[in-house]
């Protein structure tokens, strides 16, 4: 008997978006290694942006060429199906606009103390941490893979590829460096902790099903008997790792600290891209692997969704820092999306809910990037002005900027004629049709509480007198473009949501490959 090693078949076209992003990241590393310092930025920025654009174009090309695929590529390791491609497109778009936000807010040299002679020298030499760009590309590649992995080990690897660069990026803020480094440290420790949970869950599920393939775990649910403890504990522990990434309560505590400490463009990337990717992975695990276990996990996810919405909304009320407030708002929004996840529990895989979730992710992602983009523009001498008291009277000082932010906040609150309204409408109506009426009632109450702190900022901006030494407004052209684009998207998705809803529903109809 001779074992022959068969070469794995790789569907290069299907995976091309991933390959382009990772390839560009590696080229970026080489540039860091070999290009002279003053040339690096000139290479890195176009390389990063072009690779993201190319990957986005490839996603479209794949769909246009052969229709929406529905197969497990690379020997069953990576799922290429409607939701995966939709999520890829979303992540790439969000990454592109987040990268545009990256301006001067990164350390020129990691060891230099802010304001020190070394830093001045580093700045004057044109030094900048251009490795930010390849790091972002690696993180984005990890996000793409995370949302599309079809077995638990690939998912774990993707999780780490996504997370490790983010840990570093969090610590690279140029100003308030201690806060930034503390955030990076916390994120790293807790991320490692939760990764361990994820891995442990993977091991237990392997013990139960004898496979790490999501679809094989699913089929084994009906065939394997007497191992329920392994299954339940494994699934729950795996869930902890995923809930941590979306920031569901009680695994949310890292979010405010990290969102606050990280450089704001990176916060934007995490609040949009990471959330999208994590929801992609969460759906894949809960629907593909554990789809037949719905009766067991849906009460648990019910509880988590309620806690997440309520705690996120309530804690946001007393925040005095805009980044922390947005972090808690992101927690509440994760809860809103979870309502649709709960409601779609079922083997029939309710594509209405799936499309609702996909739409929500696009709408919320763009609004969030826009909101953080506005945050980068309002500056004090020591850096961005985060404390809400500094935002008082912004409406009089800079009416356009204040109006745009007010618009983003209204979208997050879910006011009609913004994308947030349709996003909430989509997930809540899916939840109602899935029978989770009580959950929607909680969701609406939480939305009402959330509306309070969104509107409070608006009131603060427009109905308070500006302080004499108020913050100054810095408007780099790229940031202005990002904020404008996000505002436009928020309007268009709020007034003409149909094309994107159709796209989401087309993606959702292909369902997850099993």
């Amino acid at each position, binding site marked *: 008997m001779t074992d022959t090693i068969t070469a794995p078949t790789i569907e290069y076209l299907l995976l091309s978006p991933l390959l382009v992003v990772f390839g560009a990241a590696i080229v970026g590393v080489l540039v860091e290694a070999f290009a002279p310092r003053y040339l690096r930025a000139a290479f890195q920025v176009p390389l990063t942006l072009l690779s993201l654009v190319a990957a986005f174009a490839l996603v479209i090309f794949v769909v246009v060429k052969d229709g929406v695929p529905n197969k497990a590529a690379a020997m069953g390791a990576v799922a290429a199906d409607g939701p995966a491609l939709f999520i890829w497109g979303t992540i790439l778009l969000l990454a592109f606009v987040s990268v545009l936000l990256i301006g001067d807010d990164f350390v020129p040299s990691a060891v230099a103390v802010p304001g020190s002679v070394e830093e001045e020298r580093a700045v004057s030499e044109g030094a900048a941490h251009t490795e930010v760009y390849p790091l972002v590309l690696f993180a984005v590649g990890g996000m793409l893979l995370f949302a599309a992995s079809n077995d638990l080990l690939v998912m774990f690897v993707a999780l780490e590829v996504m997370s490790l660069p983010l840990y570093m990026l969090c610590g690279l803020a140029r100003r308030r460096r201690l806060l930034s480094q503390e955030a990076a440290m*916390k994120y790293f420790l807790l991320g490692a902790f939760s990764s361990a949970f994820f891995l442990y869950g993977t091991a237990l599920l392997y013990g139960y099903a004898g496979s790490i393939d999501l679809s094989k775990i699913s089929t084994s649910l009906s065939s394997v008997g007497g191992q329920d403890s392994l299954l339940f*504990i494994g699934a729950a522990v795996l869930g902890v790792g995923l809930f941590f990434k979306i920031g569901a309560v009680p695994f949310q*505590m890292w979010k405010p600290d990290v969102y606050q400490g990280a450089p704001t463009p990176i916060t934007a990337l995490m609040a949009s891209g990471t959330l999208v990717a994590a929801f992609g992975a969460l759906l894949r695990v809960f629907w593909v692997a554990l789809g037949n276990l719905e009766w067991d996990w849906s*009460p648990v996810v019910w509880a988590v969704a309620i806690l997440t919405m309520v705690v996120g909304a*309530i804690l946001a009320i007393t925040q005095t820092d805009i980044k922390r407030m947005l972090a808690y708002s992101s927690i509440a929004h994760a809860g809103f999306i979870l309502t649709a996840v709960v409601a779609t529990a079922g083997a029939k895989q309710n594509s209405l809910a799936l499309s609702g979730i996909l739409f929500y992710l696009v709408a919320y992602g763009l609004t969030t990037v826009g909101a953080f983009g506005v945050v980068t523009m309002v500056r004090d001498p020591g850096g961005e002005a985060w404390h809400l008291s500094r935002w008082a009277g912004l409406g009089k000082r800079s009416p356009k900027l204040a109006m745009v932010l007010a618009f983003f906040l209204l979208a997050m609150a879910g006011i009609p004629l913004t994308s947030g309204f349709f996003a909430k409408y989509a997930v809540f109506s899916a939840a109602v049709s899935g029978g989770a009426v009580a959950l929607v009632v909680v969701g609406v109450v939480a939305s009402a509480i959330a509306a309070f702190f969104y509107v409070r900022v608006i009131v603060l901006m427009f109905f308070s007198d500006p302080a004499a030494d108020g913050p100054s407004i810095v408007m780099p052209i790229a940031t202005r473009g990002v904020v404008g684009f996000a505002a436009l998207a928020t309007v268009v998705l709020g007034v003409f949501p149909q094309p994107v809803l159709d796209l989401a529903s087309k993606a959702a109809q292909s369902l997850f490959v099993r």
Partner: protein
Amino acid sequence: MEPIVEHSGGVIGASWLMIAFPLASAAILLLGGRRTNAWGHLLGVFAPVASFVVAVMCFLQPSGRYDVGLYDFIPGVAKVGLLIDPLSITFALLITGVGSLIHIYSIGYMAHDPERRRFFAYLNLFVAAMLLLVLADNYLVLFLGWEGVGLASYLLIGFWQFKPTAATAAKKAFVVNRVGDFGFLVGLFTIFATFGTFAFGPVFDNAAKASNGTLTAIGIMLLIGACGKSAQLPLQSWLLDAMEGPTPVSALIHAATMVTAGVYLVVRSGAAFFPEGATASLIVTIVGVATLLAGAIIGTAKDDIKKALAGSTMSQIGYMMLAAGLGPAGYAFAIAHLLTHGFFKADLFLGAGSVMHAMKDEVNMRRYGALRALMPVTFITFFIGYLAIIGFPLLSGYFTKDGIIETAMDSNAILGWLAVIGAGITGFYMSRVVFMTFFGSKRWADDVHPHESPSVMTWPLIILSIGSIFLGGYLILSNRLMVYLGPAVGLPEALPQFHPFSPTGLATLALVALGAAIAWVRYGSAEVPQVAPRGSFLTTFARRDLYGDALNEALLMRPGQWLTRLAVWFDNKGVDGVVNGLAAGIGGSSGRLRRIQTGFVRSYALSIFVGAAVLVGAWYVVGNL
């Protein structure tokens, strides 16, 4: 009635441009600010003219009922679409046609106003909202337009907001209209609850399946809305005060178009909610007759030329309401009178504006007199409008008002005779206006030098007066309008025949002649005192708007204030306690929960660990249930 068919493309498909032109213009003028001052009024005039061209092109298309879908906000619930049918096109032509003329007139009338651009922006906003109101293919969008015209009316009545009277009048119009709108809203809710949709087509098709009580309730609620917007009893009190707005506004909004929205609503909903002989229809006719008499009586005693005309507007809309309550036989006359009234009343108001322009904004007719020689164009056009409104044979009002009176007489003799009496009073008060203004002796202040208005103001007058002469005959003879509107509102079983010398018609003419004669004796041949004589109890009654405001104050305002105080008390003690308690509770729990966020990574890890333990435990428990 013809069924409504979906339609897109072609001229009909582009009908949304009618609304888009004035809306865009309003947006440009309001957002552009002072930069647009130089040419703002030209853009403001261009917009309704462009809309008029689109309306004419739609009118020239093959007649039918087309539904042009524009935008699906929430599929199955909230949709924006236009219904292009003979009824809506008729209104669109009136709004854009007369509207354009009034816009042109306003160039001259507002020439010296520093805020002329803002004025045109609001006028454009009004035209857009009014077109949305009449072109909407469902009640929800109709309501959007309804509120839009309410807003524009508020802004324009209070246009000279530095005058406290204007500001108050605007507020009054707004508040009274809220009452009507509230009724309308309840009607809308009932419609949606009953039919599950707001769209005209399905609602009208399924109306027969709903219970009589529901239909009557919806009808009455819609009528309350119509009363508010059209200044019908008991919600009439705002219209007289609304004359504080610039005169073109009074002509366009408070005479020719907006105040007829109630008539439109009743006619549009007629087949479903106001069928012939139904309770709701009877109430419509009663409201109409009561208002036509009340308005006429108010008109007899006013010395302010615009208020006299406003009373007349109330009265004429009363006629339209009366006709609209009479079923398909009355619809065409209601609309025909609405159209001719749009022309002659706009003519009269703009004529009054021209006089005021000449008299340094004096509105008291006791300070006028003998203007006919000095302002010949204004006089002739005004006189034509006057002949039209009193129903002088062969002029517009003669055909349309007579049609309403005849139809009412056929339906119910009491209604008919009251309408005849109303016509007689019209003959008196309109003659009084003409005699006091253009005849008799000069009673002007010394520093007033009356002069004819510039041609940009007189040309619209001339065109409107031509319409006042011929339009009625054109619409009524051989039932042109009735046949044209038939597909949209239904036809009566037998088309009415026009009798030039019917007994009713002769009686009407006799009463009108008598009224005019009395007016001549009192105000034409006799000297008009410059200070109003005290007059009898009846005069005071009419001067005080039939004690409408006093009635409102006693019946509504005082109890309303008590109710408000009670509500405030309850709000402070009860609701606020709950609300503040709730808010404090949430805020407090937020503060307490916040303490868990210690900032120490070890406690975060502990939280994750505990959470994981709970999750595993819960899952395990649920899984083993």
